[in-house]
């Protein structure tokens, strides 16, 4: 690339950067960290959010009348920038005071306390007084409760990061800035509740919110109550991506696998049985893989009633997305329920019978990297006489809080194993946590079922990685299977539009709503847009897979037993009842009040 270089000085330091670079980025290059608030750089996703709205990042530029927002001002040859003159510091202080004058001051009881960009900056700047607070107007807006996300717009500082995530990255279009000036907030169309909007609960907005304006629905209090109730048997399942990120909340480096410590912590919290969603991920593969082969063989035989590609259906954010925005395609995703829901359905039938506990007295909790899971388990399809298969779901972040609250020294815990039978899993189950993992797991099983031959290799590196849309051709002993993979709903939209326009030649497609797959989920420890962290988590997931003695779902002995004792075979009548679902056209509900 032939790029003109520009020389400038920042705080008397000389810097040389390519033309078009912002002052903020040039300063970073020079080792000068200018404070920012609304700004967000999601480097690898090619999204740089720089609305220049909050004015915290202002700097003085010689020869310029007013202060310049460094996040959105480009450098020029010979520019002289000063990042901490008295004028700059005064301006920042005023901006901060103005922001805080219209922000609740009940930090001590805010769910974001200790993890809040606004709080952190206020501490750094040493704000000790808000001038004229007594005469300041304070804007108020109703709080919006949905099954997964809470919007408390009184805490919104209009950085509009959530809007960028929702519209540019995810292309969901649920959130937009509305109204003007003091009255402006970020809200769904016509200020409807999130629950009535096109929101998918992917939680990417929550993941980047710098304050407590967007938070998850917290179920930890309910969990503590249930755990202390002797009449209830409380069991837990943990999603694959949790073990690759939970350690970060306890100061461990990203990519540390804490599977054993997590199990130990859950046992100490009082769960009667600690099980693994990886088990039901294996079960998902049995059902989804069989469905894929069934549709594929029918299609190859020329059955016109069968549509391809088949799309994965494990990701509830993705399910919500197509139910609201691609309602003409409700018949192409697999009917297989997600691993979370398969686990619940098996736990409250097969397992409840085994331990002779009545359904109503068995509480199934899930630990998920995801906020959409909170909504998924409330869906009517996943209830029996009003009793949900999964009672509630808590996020990785909530689990970390709970462990701290319970005074458990996480880092010194011994490594413990999951309980049986629903805690046994294969490497195929664990890779569900990373983009490409579900389809790789499905191929490991579908290949052997289809060809009746042993897989020549287990690792499909061509399916892995961080590119937003990937494709690969897998040879099924002479039959070429075209695979598509997308993560992030914006990428999913591209693939779906291709399918709709008949430009698609895939047999099977895996879609995950969040960047990186579940490892980048809306319920994970905040990564602040640092993709390096996601890559580390991904490596951890594949590391766990590589160390498993069994790496194909259909070889999981407890899955084999489950079919022998209870389900019969994949896609049997009982499987259909317990492990499959149908999709709902939500567009009617959404349009418009």
């Amino acid at each position, binding site marked *: 690339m032939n790029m003109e270089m520009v020389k400038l000085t920042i705080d008397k330091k000389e810097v040389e950067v390519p033309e078009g670079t912002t002052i903020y980025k040039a300063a970073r290059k020079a080792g000068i960290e200018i404070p920012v608030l609304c700004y967000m750089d999601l480097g690898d996703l090619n999204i740089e959010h720089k609305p220049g709205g909050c004015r915290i990042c202002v700097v003085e530029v010689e020869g310029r009348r007013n202060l310049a927002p460094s996040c959105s001002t480009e450098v020029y040859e010979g520019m002289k920038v000063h990042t901490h003159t008295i004028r700059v510091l005064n301006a920042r202080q005023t901006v901060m005071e103005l922001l805080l004058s219209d922000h609740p001051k009940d930090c001590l009881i805010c769910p974001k306390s200790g993890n809040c960009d606004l709080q952190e900056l206020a501490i750094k700047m040493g704000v000790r007084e808000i001038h004229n607070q007594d005469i300041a107007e304070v804007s108020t807006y109703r709080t919006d409760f949905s099954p997964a996300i809470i919007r408390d717009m009184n805490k919104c500082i209009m950085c509009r990061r959530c809007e960028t995530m929702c*519209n540019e990255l995810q292309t*969901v*279009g*649920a*959130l*937009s*800035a*509305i*109204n*003007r000036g003091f009255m*402006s907030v970020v*809200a*769904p*169309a*016509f*200020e409807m509740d999130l629950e009535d*909007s*096109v929101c998918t609960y992917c939680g990417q907005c929550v993941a980047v919110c710098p304050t407590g304006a967007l938070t998850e629905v917290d179920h930890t209090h309910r969990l503590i109550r249930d755990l202390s109730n002797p009449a209830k048997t409380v069991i837990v399942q943990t999603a694959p991506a949790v073990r690759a990120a939970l350690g970060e909340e306890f100061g461990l480096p990203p990519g540390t696998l804490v599977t054993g410590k997590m199990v130990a912590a859950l046992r100490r919290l009082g769960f009667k049985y600690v099980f693994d969603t990886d088990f039901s991920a294996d079960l998902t593969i049995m059902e989804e893989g069989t469905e894929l082969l069934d549709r594929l063989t029918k299609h190859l035989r020329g059955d016109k009633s069968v549509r391809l590609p088949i799309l994965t259906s494990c990701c509830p954010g993705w399910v919500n997305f197509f139910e609201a925005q691609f309602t003409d395609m409700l018949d192409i995703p697999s009917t297989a329920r997600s691993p979370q829901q398969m686990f619940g359905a098996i736990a409250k039938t097969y397992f409840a019978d085994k331990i002779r506990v009545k359904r109503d007295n068995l509480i199934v909790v899930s630990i998920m990297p995801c906020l959409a899971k909170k909504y998924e388990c409330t869906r009517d399809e996943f209830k029996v006489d009003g009793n949900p298969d999964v009672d509630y779901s808590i996020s990785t972040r909530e689990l970390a809080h709970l462990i701290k609250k319970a005074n458990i020294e996480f880092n010194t815990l011994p490594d413990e194993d999951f309980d049986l039978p629903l805690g046994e899993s294969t490497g195929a189950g664990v890779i569900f946590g990373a983009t490409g993992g579900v389809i790789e797991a499905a191929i490991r099983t579908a290949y052997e079922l289809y060809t009746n031959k042993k897989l020549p290799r287990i690792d499909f590196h061509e399916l892995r990685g961080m590119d937003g849309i990937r494709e690969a051709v897998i040879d099924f002993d002479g039959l070429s299977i075209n695979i598509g993979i997308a993560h992030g709903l914006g990428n999913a939209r591209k693939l779906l539009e291709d399918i709709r326009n008949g430009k698609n030649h895939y047999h099977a497609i895996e879609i995950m709503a969040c960047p990186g797959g579940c490892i980048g989920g809306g319920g994970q420890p905040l990564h602040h847009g640092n993709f390096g962290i996601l890559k580390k988590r991904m490596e951890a997931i594949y590391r766990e897979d590589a160390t498993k003695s069994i790496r194909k779902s259909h070889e999981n002995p407890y899955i084999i037993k489950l079919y022998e004792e209870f389900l019969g075979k994949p896609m049997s009548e009982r499987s259909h009842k317990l492990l499959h679902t149908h999709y709902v056209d939500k567009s009617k509900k959404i*349009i*418009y*009040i």
Partner: protein
Amino acid sequence: MSRIKVELKKKDVDTIREICRSFSNNPDELINVLHKIQHAFGYLPAEVQEVVARELRIAVAKVYGVVTFYSFFSMVPKGRHPISVCTGTACYVRGAENVLSEFRKELNIDVGETTPDGRFSISCLRCVGACGLAPVVMVGEKTYGRVSPEMVRDIIREYEGQ
């Protein structure tokens, strides 16, 4: 929020589509599209915004964001005689606020509302480019200059029976 429910007829949807098409369904033309549609319908109810979003292939939340940002756009039907009080800098310092509150008192409605008989509505606008006549009020296409609160009742009376 409270709002008026509207059932769009096929002819209305066709009109909206036609206007969108005249701007090549270009999402960058959203403001111009909304201007034209408001001119045709008198206001921009949610159902209209929904069609616009679909035609321009943008999120309806974005359309709503623009409609609520610009004071010119309205989600309620304007009165037959829409009253616009300029609250731009020049008009403001020469007492537009008092004129505005007199209109609100006389008509018993707030800014952005329409009288129950559908005759008058009040909105604010920012500068009509006649600062020499400040404070300025427009009723429909007619402009009134140097308006004082005392003149408000007479202005309203001009439209009696209409």
